[in-house]
């Protein structure tokens, strides 16, 4: 089940893209990572999504107090410093927020096909090969098990059929 009706507002998307630039290794993938992050948000429960959205807004605007401009308009060094200020904050709510966002962004970044290729992680071919080997070696036994699975095998001698 995937919620289809959630999209980042332009401001929230700008915040997410700036976060990707600040904490992911490749800024060039920022837009694609933001897209994946948006998909992740869609399958979060509404309360979590609302809390994260409120956190992103606060994270964006509170930077004005320290730097005179919102997070999405900071240079790379200040953006990173702002993230780390929250990461090391003694206030649990700030720390837990950026910890959660970090996890979602890291997930989104390493889900990118280009990153998987760089890491030489290509499981599809392995799965196809392993599945083919399994059927070749054990096909008849597997089919027999599938058949037997649907045969009656009453739970208890004391139990009678209705």
């Amino acid at each position, binding site marked *: *089940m995937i919620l289809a009706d959630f999209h980042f507002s332009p401001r929230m998307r700008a915040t997410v893209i700036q976060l990707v630039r600040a904490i992911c290794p490749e800024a060039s993938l920022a837009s694609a990572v933001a897209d994946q992050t948006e998909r992740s948000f869609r399958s979060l429960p509404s309360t979590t999504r609302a809390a994260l959205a409120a956190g992103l807004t606060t994270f964006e605007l509170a930077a004005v107090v320290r730097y005179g401009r919102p997070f999405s308009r900071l240079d790379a060094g200040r953006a990173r410093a702002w993230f780390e200020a929250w990461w090391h904050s003694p206030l649990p709510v700030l720390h*837990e927020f950026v910890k959660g966002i970090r996890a979602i962004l890291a997930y989104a970044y390493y889900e990118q096909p280009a990153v998987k290729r*760089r890491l030489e992680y290509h499981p599809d071919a392995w799965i196809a090969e*392993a599945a083919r080997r399994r059927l070749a*070696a054990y096909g008849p036994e597997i089919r027999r*098990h599938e058949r037997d699975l649907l045969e009656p095998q009453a739970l208890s001698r004391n139990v*009678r059929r209705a």
Partner: protein
Amino acid sequence: MRDVTIDCDAVVVGSGAGGGVVAAELAEAGLDVVVLEEGSYHPTEEFTAIAGDMVPRLYRDHGASMAMGTPVIVYGEGRCVGGSTVVNGGMTWRTPERVLDRWAREHAVDGVGADEMDRIFARVEALVSAAHQDPESIGRDNELLRKGAEAMGWKVIPNVRNQLHCAGTNNCAFGCPTGAKRSTLVSYVPRALAFGARVYADCRAETLVTHGKRVVGVAARVVRANGTPGARVLVRAGAVVVAAGSIHTPALLLRSGIRSPSGQIGRNLTLHPNAKVVATFDEDVEGWKGVHQAYQVREFQEQGYLMAAVNVPPSVLAMGMPFIGRALDEILSQYNRIVSGGILVEDTTAGRVRVLPGGAPMAFYQLSDWDAERVVRGVALISELLFAAGARRVWVPFDGVAPLDGPDEVRRLFSRPIPKRAMEIMTTHVMGTCRMGGDRARHVCDPWGKVYDAEGLWLADASLFPTPIGVNPMETIMALATRNAERIIETHHSRKAAKPTSVGEGRATWERGAAERLGAPSRSEEASRQ
């Protein structure tokens, strides 16, 4: 789609290790069974290694449900036909005898002696094809784990898994793409269907329907593709079995106004806190080629620790590591030379599930100081093991702690206290919250899962556990579900034999009550419309 009303002998909420098993057993015994599953139906052919596609489909909350506390503990729960059995690692371990003894001794759980349970475990194991791995399916990461354990002189054993010639695709957490892992999706659910059960996917149980102290049905809503509620579904049944997992089962009971004389609904939540370490080796490991967990290190089981090699895709690995940017990428760029080691701790404290305004559950769990120390000790132990296997460097799941560059550095973990908030902890074993036992003043359910003081209501999932069990819980859940099903069948037949006409009369009464409560048309109203 219009609202619907369904009559049956038994309605089962959930289709995982508990619900799928109960449904099949009841259906085989001849009961008319309806299963309500909140998640969608995804057949084996849909499963791929693309986590970004599979996680939203197969997991609740994108696999990132949270137990609030310090640290926040992320837990993963399956939400699909087959439930968490579709996304778990497939470990199929009997409940340790010391645990069953404790349940009998401290919680008056009758009928869990070795002889009585042996029959039940054997039945489950046959139906899910529990076995050791074929040698060709075991990957290098697991061989390194075994090598490390043997070098340390520690007990290491091959896992028993619910698999039929597992191909070693290491995709357990995103649905087995070959069907070799015998989740309930491909075992008990097809069996239930073969014996006449009806399974409704995308159908979320909202409340139990009660009439006095009797639970007489389930009020559910169809879940539309965009997640919004659709048509109402009222299922009326002589037996209601809830198997929605340890978070959602107590929530459903509490939302429905079920009160236990024990006051224990939602309490006694245990989690088996898990921590992961990441070790790099000089050789190619390619942990994604081979089964998810072929071995378990059992040297410290009596002290409440299990260890295993737990390869996950880069994206999932990155989520759980307390690093960012280049520091994170420095680790992940060595992905094919990594062994991920997992440590599971049998917890000694308990949390609680509460229902928020609006009806959603929220878990609260505070890791105790003692268990936090044990997490550190467990991480130290598995780090030693990985160095003994040849690891060059080990990253630990504690923010602010530098990686370990050799076994001599492991003692650095104990040089100063590691704050709980710096720990990355997750779990997939959520237990307790509606514990069973022989005392209605201390337990929510009797030893066969029947809820005290709620006629017709049974539970069949890990919420029944009176204590954590220290091993992977799937087979225990399946065994308890089998056992409870046996009692439900006996109760069903004895009710039919004693009062052959009472069911219909009762239905006429509670049908009106349920319809009023739901604002849904009763069966007679429906008939008159047609």
